[in-house]
């Protein structure tokens, strides 16, 4: 049974029809890479999965929590779906540890002590145990992004959404973040990520989705799809980005 199921999903921004009937099944443990040109609807699709964008029409179900035509319990959905953003979006007035502790205490009603244990465990997982008391502006971009990952993981989501999480980073900081994502993937975390790191998508992903004009234009096993694109649009796209061995 699929963990995330999307069927016939449509989304408009005003008169702009951005998602034109998306069907998608993500199984437990899948690592899905969303690729496509700018404006093809990758971010919008990702953001509908945790209700940051409303849905006009269609079905969305994550681990039994469903939205029908955009209606349903958003907060229940969000407790199952974690998200990491391009711009990190850490809470600047809280330390790294407090950033991670906030949702478990406030949303799940966990005690301070339990939340602290979880925060320590999650920061350790992303290699930042010693930064518990640092404020975001005392951390590098790569460190901030890793705290953001820890913050999302602390809610024990069923699936983690990542929207170009290395795009705002200096090149030398990209790998430390990718390494964390790779680790999560090997531990069996279900991931859906929008990425421009084609090589990463191919090596870590087990499902590749190429979006084009608001539709899933082509999808399949990353190695096969990259090596043997079935549509000229994807061939064109793959040709325009380097998938270096």
């Amino acid at each position, binding site marked *: 049974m699929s963990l995330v199921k999307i069927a016939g999903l449509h989304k408009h921004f005003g008169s702009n029809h951005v998602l034109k009937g998306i069907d998608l099944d993500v199984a437990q443990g899948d690592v899905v890479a969303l690729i496509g040109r700018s404006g093809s609807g990758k971010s919008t699709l990702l953001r509908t999965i*945790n209700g940051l964008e409303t849905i006009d029409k269609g079905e969305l179900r994550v681990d039994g929590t469903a939205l029908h035509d955009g209606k349903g319990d958003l*907060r229940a959905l*969000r407790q199952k*779906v974690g998200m990491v*953003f391009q711009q990190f979006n850490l809470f*600047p*007035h809280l330390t790294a540890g407090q950033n991670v502790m*906030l*949702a478990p205490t406030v949303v799940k009603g966990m005690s301070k002590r339990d939340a602290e244990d979880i925060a320590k465990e999650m920061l350790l997982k992303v290699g930042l145990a010693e930064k518990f008391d640092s404020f975001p502006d005392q951390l590098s971009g790569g460190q901030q992004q890793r705290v953001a990952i820890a913050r*999302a993981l602390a809610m024990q989501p069923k699936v983690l959404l990542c929207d170009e999480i290395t795009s705002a980073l200096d090149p030398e900081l990209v790998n430390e973040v990718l390494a964390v994502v790779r680790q999560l993937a090997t531990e069996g975390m279900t991931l859906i990520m929008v990425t421009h790191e084609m090589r990463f998508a191919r090596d870590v992903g087990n499902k590749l989705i190429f979006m084009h004009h608001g539709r899933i234009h082509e999808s399949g096993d990353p190695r096969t799809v990259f090596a043997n694109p079935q549509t000229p649009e994807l061939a064109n796209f793959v040709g325009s980005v380097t998938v270096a061995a």
Partner: protein
Amino acid sequence: MFVQFSTWDIVRNLLEGGKWTLALSLIAFILGGGVGLAILFARIARNRLLQAFAKTYIEVFQGTPLLMQLFIVFFGLSLVGVDVSPWLAAALGLTLFTSAYLAEIWRGCVEAVPKGQWEASSSLALSYAQQMRHVILPQALRIAVAPTVGFSVQVVKGTAVTSIIGFAELTKTGSMLANATFQPFLVFGLVAAGYFALCYPLSLYAKSLERKFHVAR
């Protein structure tokens, strides 16, 4: 009638008036802050009706001169049979005025918190109230400190208007003294100096806060 006023007499009387200016400023600022906070919450609430009420409130008090607001409070209330002293009318009028401006300043501060903060806290399943309480307001507060202190200068200067309804604060005391002493230049010079002594430190403080929070970001 021809009492001789020494310069010290003038200063002493002005200090007495200045005390009331200070008291009125404090009251207006504290009560106005409280009411302003309530208006702010209405303004940023999800309820359309509350929003509309707060918006109208702010627009009315920002869109009319403080003097008219005082007249309406002072004469309007006595018209309907409520006897208000100049002191009460002044405090009430300035509180309304201050609350509208502070609510609007603070709304700007809430809106200055980046959209990503809303999104990140939404994605963590926080409710609207939880987002406000734990993520948005703490950040808005830091942004608000400098402009709020800056606005307090406007409140101090605004108290001068209450002299017209006969409240004996610094300006009113000054005009009475000017009439009695025939030394308007000296008296109003001292009055101005009094306002400056109250306002200048506040301005400086606001500027230093602005610098401090600017660096802190």
